[in-house]
């Protein structure tokens, strides 16, 4: 279908509230000063700071990237899909919230993919770009996430481990802000400094507190530039640390008390937060009600549709194998076996209606990909470059028993009730059952 061109009437539609910081001109660190700042620093007339330079996307250039560049283990989404993003920017005629590089409609398209080809002009030449699917699953979830990020509230992605929450957060940030690298990784050791700001102690000792000795956090950078801040595994942080986000989310401001009561860093429009948390960890450091209220929660479910799960597992595993230059065959029967085993262990119910004790380990799609990848590596080095049911069985045991030994008897129960019965009718299941029996010894 031909793309419809929509005349753009206004860059700031009424539906998006423009945030005007009262002292936006003072949000940048001032040039070095010899004296500590006084309250007057808030009135200094400095030009609006240049936005942090996002790695420039070079398109159509013949210049080869440096070796180090090519050796990166992983590229951020904005670099990996730079052509897609550029094409969408060039063809975007829909209204955009302030400081968004793409309109919500185009952000959605970037995540969900499209068969439609978009023209991309680079250095006077034009080519067609197809938008790949980054996230499989319900489109509603993507829409709700985008809407949340365009609103006053922050976005909390929750779900079982391995449901692509971080993946989604990264791609949303890349599409909205052009960068996905303003990132705080939540851990038990995360401190308030890492969320708000810290100091260059050499400067601090020699010159006292000054804007120059202030080390901005990713939060401050995102606020100043009107971009998306990613906060991974928020609930792994202690609650008092989590709560330092409250004023940032409600007031969109960070006061730097050491520089005087009026030294404030304001967020500019476009700033928002995408946090993620595992459903299973929520009890570890429960979020306070006050912080919860600042977020809209979007629950990312485990994929239930077998054919969709199959598609994702195969595509992602092949992507990983291609990256390391391996070509390994994954037969359909073996893949089907893997998907069936995961779906059945997850629910405690076999496709033929039998019931058994469900496994306590997370049986996520990402765990499935990892298991298949490991099996493929094993097949490469110790097999015939073809993933076989026995490889799945071996890796399944270690994947499932790893954090809870109680899972082994449960796995045996599944094996006795389901796998052994199927082994009578199918060679694939027979090989799987034999390998399981051999390896499930501890």
């Amino acid at each position: 279908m031909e793309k419809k061109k929509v005349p753009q009437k206004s860059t700031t539609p009424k539906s998006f509230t423009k945030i005007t910081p009262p002292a936006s001109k003072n949000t940048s660190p001032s040039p070095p000063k010899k004296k500590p700042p006084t309250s007057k620093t808030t009135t200094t007339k400095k030009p609006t700071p240049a936005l942090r330079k996002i790695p420039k996307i070079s398109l159509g250039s013949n210049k080869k990237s440096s070796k180090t560049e090519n050796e990166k283990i992983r590229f951020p989404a904005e670099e990996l899909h730079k052509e897609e993003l550029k094409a969408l920017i060039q063809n975007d005629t829909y209204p955009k919230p302030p400081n968004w590089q793409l309109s919500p409609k185009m952000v959605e398209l970037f995540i969900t993919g499209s068969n439609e080809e978009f023209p991309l002009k680079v250095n006077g030449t034009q080519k067609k770009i197809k938008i790949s699917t980054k996230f499989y699953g319900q489109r509603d979830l993507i829409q709700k996430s985008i809407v949340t990020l365009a609103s006053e509230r922050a976005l909390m992605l929750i779900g079982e481990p391995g449901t692509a929450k971080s993946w989604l957060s990264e791609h949303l940030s890349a599409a909205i802000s052009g960068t996905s690298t303003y990132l705080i990784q939540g851990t038990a050791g995360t401190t308030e400094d890492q969320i708000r700001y810290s100091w260059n102690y050499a400067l601090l000792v020699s010159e006292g507190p000054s804007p120059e000795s202030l080390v901005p956090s990713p939060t401050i950078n995102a606020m100043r530039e009107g971009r998306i801040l990613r906060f991974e595994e928020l609930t792994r942080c202690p609650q008092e640390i989590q709560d330092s986000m409250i004023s940032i989310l409600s007031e969109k401001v960070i006061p730097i008390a050491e520089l005087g009561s009026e030294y404030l860093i304001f967020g500019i429009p476009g700033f928002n937060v995408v946090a993620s948390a595992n459903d299973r960890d929520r009890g570890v450091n429960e979020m306070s009600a006050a912080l919860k209220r600042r977020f809209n929660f979007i629950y990312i479910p485990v994929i239930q549709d077998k054919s969709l799960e199959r598609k994702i597992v195969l595509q992602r595993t092949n992507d990983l194998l291609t990256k390391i230059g391996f070509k390994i065959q994954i037969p359909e029967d073996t893949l089907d076996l893997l998907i069936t085993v995961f779906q059945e262990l997850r629910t405690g119910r076999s496709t033929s209606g039998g019931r058994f004790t469900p496994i306590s380990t997370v049986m996520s799609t990402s765990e499935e990909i990892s298991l298949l990848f490991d099996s493929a590596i094993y097949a490469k080095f110790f097999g015939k470059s073809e993933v076989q049911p026995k490889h799945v069985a071996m890796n399944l045991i270690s994947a499932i028993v790893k954090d809870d030994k109680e899972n082994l008897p449960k796995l045996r129960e599944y094996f006795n009730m389901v796998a052994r019965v199927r082994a009578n009718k199918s060679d694939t299941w027979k090989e799987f059952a034999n390998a399981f029996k051999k390896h499930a010894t501890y």
Partner: protein
Amino acid sequence: MSDTYLSAANLKKILFEIGTSLGVDNSDIDAKVDKVKKSEIIYLPIRHHSPGSTILVKKWIEKYEPKLILVEGPALADNLIKYMVERDTIPPIAILSLFADTNNTFGLNGILSPDKLVPAKFEAYYPFVSYSPELVALSEAIKKKIPIHFIDLPLTGLISCSSANLKDPSKKVDLFNIEGESIYNLSKFYKKFAQVFDFEDFNESWETLFEIGANKSDIDELRESMLLFCAFIRQTTDMKILKANSTLTRESYMKHNIETYKKKYKVKDKDILVITGGIHSIALPDTLPQSYPFPTKQLINSLVPYSYYRISQKSGYMSGNQAPQFYNSIWKKFTSQVEHPYSAVALEFITDIFKDARVKGNVVSISDSINSYQGAKMLAMLRRREEPDLKDVIDSIYMVLVKGNPEIEGKYLDSLIQEKSIGYKVGKVTKNIGRLPLQKDFYLQLEAHGIDPEEKVQQKIINLREEAESKLSQLFWKIKFLGIDYAHRLLGPDILKGDTGIFTEKWSLKWNPRIDAKLVELSTYGATLEEASKNMLVEETKKNVKNFGIITNLLFQSLSMGYTDHFKDLHKECLNSLEVDNQFLSLTEGFFNLIMIFQFMAMMGCSKDDMDLMEQLIQRSYYTCCFSIPNFANPPSGDEVKYIDAMKMLANTLISIQNIEIDLNVYIESINTCVENTSNEFIKGGTVGILYLLNYMKVKEIETLIYEYLNSIDSIKVKIGDLIRGLIYVCQAKLIFNQDIIRVLAKVVETIEWEVFSAILPPLRKAFSELHPTEYDIFVEKLAEHYGLIKRKHAELMDIVEEDVKNFFKIVDEKVKKIFEEWFGEV
């Protein structure tokens, strides 16, 4: 900005693009739409229960002032039109068409009914809400004195053209999905359209295109867009489907009626307005008229109150409206000419839900409401809608309020949203319409017993030993049996559970408007409560002949309704059922029911002949039950517990039975055969346990059996867990406190290998977890005694306590006997 949204206005280009991608001939579609537009007769496309269509109909009638209006609706129901628009008729209402084929005209008796003698019954509802375009057309026509008629096939016509398919049980004929919306989903064009715009269902598509903004649309433009959309769907739907679901037959009959009324009223084509579903409007100009023969005599058309809940798809009415209450609010905004009706309703809906959530104790702030409303509007924008629809609103509510998995933490919202979107409104039908004979009988019978049927709530206490009052009880039983939601028994003897000691019944009576609808529905069974209940009894008996449990239950209900004259017929049906029912579970349930009914009959003072017949029936059912036991020695996996329960219940009944001669040896023989034949160790353990309880097996024999397993090969040894579980399940404390059994169990655990033990552990764990905690504790103590860990004091204490308890109950028995003698004389 206008292109940002999908709407009737920009639809043409989009539809043609999709059409081209599917290889549809767009010029052909254009020609079809053009033909309808140029037709002198005005064909107005609608969707049922759609405020957008209704506004189109209303404006059209106002603008073009037709002289004859013809509406898609059951042709023989024209007599109801004046009642439908009366002031005291309040929607939702429905035309109910009923037909009982007493003459077997369609040859479907015995196919769609349980027996050739039982007439096949059919019913169809045609619901209307205040914003149904058909109802608004009726109302406008009556107001403006324009003749108006229904033109679709009536119920008997629909049966007639589907009877061949109905005779073939392999074909699932959805006779009454008369709106035929399910066919939209089968159109390859619609599938593609929904995929391109990611529409969840047909509701969402229609709402986005033709509901949102309908109040502001130009009516000619709106009509053209609807026609175009429907033309694409029609063109890409398999003709076989349209034939199979009677769409083509209905259209030719509608065309026939259009021609007939045109001649009758002698009006010009341009003055005729034909209001039908969009899928028909596009086809009618080219359709050839045809009349069809169908019976009209036994066809009943009546008007009944309906409810929003039934209209909603939650009640299974597939062509309904997902949220009648929500669209009623939209309709109200349309009629009050609010500029952005959907946004206004979204705001009201959100604030109502949030208010209710707050009342229910949830922390919900004004900021949440603002965020949700803003979210709904933005979601609408992303989904190409000018205003938020119900889906956007619901999504935004969950987005803001649910802080976790919506399936768990959002559960409380489900009922709130359902309440607000579906609503509980029940309609009312004017009294001027009159009552059908069954309705009249219902009210007359209650009045004859001095009961005002329409009084909201009342209670009646009935002394069953008073003849007049027992008649009232029988009337309530008839009402209950017919499924009329009026009389509910609060207290009384529960005969089938063996409770025959009370002679008083307490009934709660509560009238509601649905009762009339139910009575109209039941009219195919008969003109009086007695006739209807007897016919239903016959039908249910024929339907359930293979389930002896249900048949005996019907026998009980028949006696409760006072149909002692019917006893012999039902006795015969019970004998038939015994012949054909080969399920042990239903046979034992039936046997138990018969024992209870026998006592009930004695209490009612039934004739000796009937009592003798009953005794013979009990004996016969007893032998049938016993003979079927060995057949179920190996029941389906997962059903073992049910079978053992039934065998145990049978044993308990046999021990307590009095006044009926039965041979217990037959049962023992069957159980013994079952023990021998079964390969299911749980059943073996259970049946051995039954023999032990009936003193037909000794502890020593049980010991020997367990040792046999213990000394076998591993594959048999692993079954010992199920055997012990079966034994404990049946005998419980009566067996496991026995020191010999404890010794055997200890031996099992001591001698068995680890691998086998891990296999028998789950059934053993289950067996002991089913014990009462006290029993469990005593067992543990006894086990400790066995190993010499504690002295044998507890058992001695138990012996003393047991004796004391026996003496105490002897005294209580004597006292109770004395009291009973004072009350009832010698007992």
